[in-house]
């Protein structure tokens, strides 16, 4: 009696359990192709990059082993004032400013678009389509569009400013040092804002509505509900957004390269464009690799500090 019950209970799981115990290597075989590609593509080049950073190697001498020069590339890169300039540009105008502006605009827009009227009037589809338009635009197209919009003579922005009498003559935004960062930041923020908006929107929509209702019952004003109930609940998603956008932007190459090539002069040079220039314009692969190592160290330190801070907050130490 007991034996039949036991077999009856285990019978349905039995065939597969036996199958698995006979195939201990199978999970490894299944994940192997993916892991091999990731190893070849990430681990291999990352290690090779470190080796390259200790060599002197011209782009034309690839295939041969470079001359080992110890820390020469690092000494050269770290004592070059251009590196400090590029690091400052990467950190402040490129990353911190655009992440902060994206957070502020993204949160504001998400709070506005989360209003129930958009759902009641069945405008969700239209809202989502319009929000997504900058994001479906490839970065290259975003730069092309803004270069034309910001053209000194025929660009809409200048024509509008001149037409309104704010300025006398069109400004070549990308060629002047006091406007070029604003122009590059505008391109980047425009293209990358939708990600922040839709992530905040999704987080807002996952907040149960009875939470707001309860606050309203207790006599909280609309503003109090937003600042005391909604905003604290957005902390985790904000942490994720800040980390992702910071890492993506710090390493970004395409906006600065296509908008200004690091110019005028070297004014908007960032680490990514400096690295590309060292390797593929000046053909000094060793220097390019050394800049890559410096960038990875900075990003690694950022990620580490960020995780420590965020996790300490999660644990309630605050």
């Amino acid at each position: 009696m007991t034996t039949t019950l036991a077999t009856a209970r285990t019978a349905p799981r039995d065939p597969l359990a036996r199958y698995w115990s006979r195939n201990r290597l199978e999970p490894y075989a299944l994940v192997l192709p993916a892991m091999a590609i990731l190893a070849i593509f990430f681990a291999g080049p990352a290690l090779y990059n470190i080796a390259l950073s200790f060599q002197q190697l011209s782009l034309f001498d690839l295939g041969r082993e470079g001359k080992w020069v110890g820390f020469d590339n690092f000494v050269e890169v770290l004592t070059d004032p251009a590196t400090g300039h590029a690091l400052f540009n990467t950190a402040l105008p490129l990353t911190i400013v655009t992440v902060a502006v994206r957070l502020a605009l993204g949160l504001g827009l998400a709070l506005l678009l989360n209003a129930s009227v958009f759902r009641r009037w069945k405008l969700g589809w239209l809202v989502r389509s319009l929000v997504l338009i900058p994001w479906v635009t490839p970065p290259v197209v975003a730069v092309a569009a803004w270069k034309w919009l910001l053209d000194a003579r025929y660009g809409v922005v200048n024509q509008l400013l001149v037409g309104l009498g704010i300025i006398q003559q069109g400004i070549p935004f990308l060629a002047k040092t006091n406007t070029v960062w604003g122009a590059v930041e505008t391109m980047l923020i425009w293209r990358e804002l939708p990600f922040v908006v839709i992530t905040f929107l999704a987080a807002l929509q996952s907040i149960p509505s009875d939470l707001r209702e309860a606050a309203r019952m207790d006599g909280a004003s609309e503003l109090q509900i937003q600042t005391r109930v909604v905003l604290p609940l957005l902390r985790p998603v904000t942490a994720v957004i800040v980390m992702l956008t910071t890492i993506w932007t710090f390493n970004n190459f395409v906006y600065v390269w296509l908008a200004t090539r690091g110019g005028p002069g070297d004014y908007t040079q960032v680490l990514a464009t400096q690295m590309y220039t060292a390797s593929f314009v000046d053909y000094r692969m060793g220097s390019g690799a050394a800049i890559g190592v410096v960038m990875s160290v900075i990003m690694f330190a950022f990620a580490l500090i960020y995780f420590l801070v965020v996790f300490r907050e999660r644990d309630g130490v605050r």
Partner: protein
Amino acid sequence: MSVDVGTSPSARFAKDLAVVVIGLALLLLLAFPFLWVVIISFRPDSEIFTRTFRLITTITTDNYAKLLSGSPFPTYLRNSFFVCITATFFAVVIALVAAYGFSRYRRFRLRQVLLVLVICTQLFPFVILITPLYAMFFSLGLVNNFLSLIVSYIAINLPFAIYLLLGYLDTIPVELDEAARIDGASTLQVIFRVILPVAWPGVVTVAVYAFVAAWDEFLFALTLMTSDENKTVPVGLASFFGEYTTQWNLVMTASVITTLPTLILFMLLQKKLVSDLTAGSVKQ
């Protein structure tokens, strides 16, 4: 909604209307740069250099004809479609097999380590890979060969694809596999005959994101494809607007065509794509 005591219906309607008008106005402003690109792409040469702002002038499709018959742009399009579709296909297949391994075998050694490594690659600065990768592909004789670009795009997309598919496969009951196993199906048969048809929605999302990421990619394509006839669309388009561009209407036409594939995919599947993407960052 039931607690709106003290607000008359008309006052409420006015408030709703104000929110909708402000919201849509801001969104139109946000979308304007791309709408402007579309408008300029239909504008004749003679009318792009106007001194004052005009929204609509003569409409012509000449730019499209010129771009598609008298320029190298169709070659770039063919290259991009070939590279992106091939890379997407292999990324999805390889990721599906790996995700199945991670989802169904919960206790194999290294599982946690490998999964953490996969997620860490998401935070990896791709840009620093370009110098060593160029050197590696060069020594393999693969610079200016589509294979190097395809492998790169597979690798870039694998981590995200594995992570998202793992989430999908975890929601599919194991009983489905068991039934197929009892019928004597092999693991690969289970994955592609049983799991794939059920995991289809997740696979579509992953495929769209992989395709779009490859389609938009600029740096690898710029560096690895050295001859003009092997350029992909983003690099080809970038070469159209050097420092002294005068044919802005052609640049805008090329921009519209470059955006069309991603635009179409997102307009068709927007609700699903957005909710699948944000699911990861919202749930903690």
